[in-house]
């Protein structure tokens, strides 16, 4: 689960990581008050989950409280379109107003989990304020990655080593190491999958401040962090994905016009690939999950059909536990409960009760091509 910058900063604050002075607001009057208190010279930052916010005009420096109010008003009534959002963008419901800080040096500090090493890793660079992938590509010797043992945590010597690597004044090493250590605490005590501070700033007067903060929480661990669940912001989610999540269906919207309904995440990705290689374009990723039943198949179809672009649906089910007749009944149920015209279906299903499932579909009167394997399916998708 992604959380907003202001929420991430509140977590940082709880763990003793210094952040710039500021406050989140959702009206221009509040913005005026907060900017006034901070002396008028402030930065106004749109709170959205998408990256690429700065370049998209979501972060602005202003010179007075009235200007802050005006910028805030513009942002609050808009959808921000960044390189990471679709063309509709994401709504800006909150804006963070912060003091402008006197930046002497911008650093990069992040914690994440390395699946191959099976450990938490710290990644630091003295080249903060830019994409870390670019730094790693162009200046690999300026990026240091250290593994941290889960029982030892962030050993003081390791945090000092990380801090020393950042080419800062020798007097800065200890305070910087302390901040790195606190960031590790944020990571483990909140079951994060990412804590990224870019930039971590050293100010002219020698303070260390987290000027930005990107935190992602492990969805699978939310059950033991009821306080973090409150950070969930449904407005930032795609409405179709939200609807799917209600039914335990994993759905990701894409740009094409072939809806895909599949059981299993791996097979769902492969089905998208087959669709694309046939020359067609998938409208979505959809995994109905292992324990799918008739109603889940039906709901999945309804969600696919919320997307008006969908003109054909490719159903690919490898039935082990999920029986084919159940899938067929789910299709029928959806076709009876949908307002729009039911599109052509390309159905490939395998496994238990296949004959029964086939008969139900044949008799249904729906426009269905039943195919035997994925090659045939690809041909059917190609045909127009």
């Amino acid at each position, binding site marked *: 689960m992604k959380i907003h910058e202001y929420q991430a900063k509140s977590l940082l604050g709880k763990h003793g990581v210094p952040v710039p002075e500021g406050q989140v607001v959702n009206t221009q009057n509040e913005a005026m008050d907060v900017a006034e208190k901070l002396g008028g010279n402030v930065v106004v930052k749109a709170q959205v989950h998408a*990256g690429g916010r700065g370049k998209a005009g979501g972060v602005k420096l202003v010179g007075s409280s009235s200007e802050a109010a005006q910028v805030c008003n513009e942002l609050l009534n808009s959808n921000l379109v960044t390189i*990471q959002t679709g063309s509709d963008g994401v709504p800006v419901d909150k804006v963070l107003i912060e003091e402008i800080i006197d930046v002497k040096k911008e650093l990069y500090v992040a914690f994440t*989990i390395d*699946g*191959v090493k*099976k*450990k*938490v890793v710290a990644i630091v660079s003295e080249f903060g304020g830019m994409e870390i*992938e670019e730094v790693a590509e162009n200046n690999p010797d300026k990026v240091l990655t250290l593994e941290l*043992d*889960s*029982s030892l945590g962030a050993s003081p010597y390791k945090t000092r080593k990380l801090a020393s690597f950042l080419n800062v004044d020798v007097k800065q090493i200890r305070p910087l190491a302390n901040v790195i250590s606190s960031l590790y605490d944020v990571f*483990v005590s909140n*079951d994060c*999958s990412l804590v990224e501070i870019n930039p971590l700033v050293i100010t002219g007067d020698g303070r260390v401040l987290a000027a930005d903060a990107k935190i992602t929480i*492990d*969805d*699978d*661990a939310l*059950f*033991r962090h009821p306080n973090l669940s409150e950070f969930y912001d449904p407005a930032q989610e795609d409405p179709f994905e939200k609807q799917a999540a209600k039914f335990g269906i*994993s759905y*990701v919207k*894409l740009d094409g016009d072939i809806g895909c309904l*599949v*059981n*299993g*995440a*791996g*097979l*769902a*990705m*492969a*089905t*998208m*690939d*087959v*669709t*694309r*290689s046939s020359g067609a374009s*998938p409208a979505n*990723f959809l*995994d109905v999950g*292992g*324990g799918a039943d008739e109603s889940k198949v039906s709901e999945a179809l309804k969600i696919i059909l919320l997307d008006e672009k969908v003109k054909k649906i490719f159903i690919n089910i*490898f*039935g*082990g*536990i999920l029986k084919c007749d159940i899938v067929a009944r789910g299709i029928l149920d959806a076709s009876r409960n949908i307002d729009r015209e039911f599109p052509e279906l390309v159905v490939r299903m*395998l*496994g*238990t009760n296949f004959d029964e499932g086939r008969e139900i579909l044949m008799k249904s009167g729906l426009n269905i091509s039943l195919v035997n*394997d*994925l*090659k045939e*399916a*690809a041909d059917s998708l190609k045909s127009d």
Partner: protein
Amino acid sequence: MSIIVNSQTKLLVQGITGKEGSFHAKKCKEYGTNLVAGAVPGRDGEIFDESVPIFDSVQDAIDSTEANTSLIFVPPHLRADDAIIEAVDAGIQVVICITEGVPVMDMVKVSSYIRDKDVILIGPNCPGAISPAPKVKVGIMPGDIHIPGKVGVVSRSGTLTYEAVGQLSKLGIGQSTCVGIGGDPVTGISFVDVLEMFQQDDETEAVVLIGEIGGNREQEAAEYIKHNFKKPVASLIVGQTAPKGKRMGHAGAIITGKDGLAEEKIRTLSSAGASIIPSIADIGEVVKEIV
């Protein structure tokens, strides 16, 4: 002898009384697996499916039945991670955790705890392992699609593995052992661990490796194939059409860095000498060429 699960397997199921656990324990037994015990705290003395004794702890189950392999269905909030540790501490040699949704940090701790221990951990969030010749299934895959043979299959995904097996069996190409290592960011054994076992296994003559976007475990496998693996490998990478930064169902299937891209994985595997399967529809055809 087949790898991981074979005629020596004596199976214990942790969480055998739950909905999933009981359903699949029965299916494993029906397939031919020697199911010797169940373990559920507080249910000591009960009998599962008319013949399988249930014990309070894994240790008790081992003491009475000499179980050596455990299949775990314990849900995350009842601490699947602890169920793994319990099995390892009791001396179980093969632990297969089916549970979906185990917090990643728990698996980091489990991995650190078992690092120097003599145990094979598969999963979590995996379909398990099956060896068709000795008729041993320890997992949730449909048994009837498998036929005995010489091709080893290793994958991060469940239904995708079934699809691969289905195509192989249809062409009469049997399997030695099929292993699903799981789709989470941190799992037990890796592609490389399974390849090492296939290397030593006389029953396996070729391997199908099915990877997906996210992480860099396929690159790790490619490195091993290039320098150490002596048998032919056919490889499929799925997620070529997946956009960056979007999680595709599996917690691990999300493209973050360059290594996570499908084309990067395909390039590395191809230069390591693996035959690339261009699309899922071609699995059977490509494997036919290498066996």
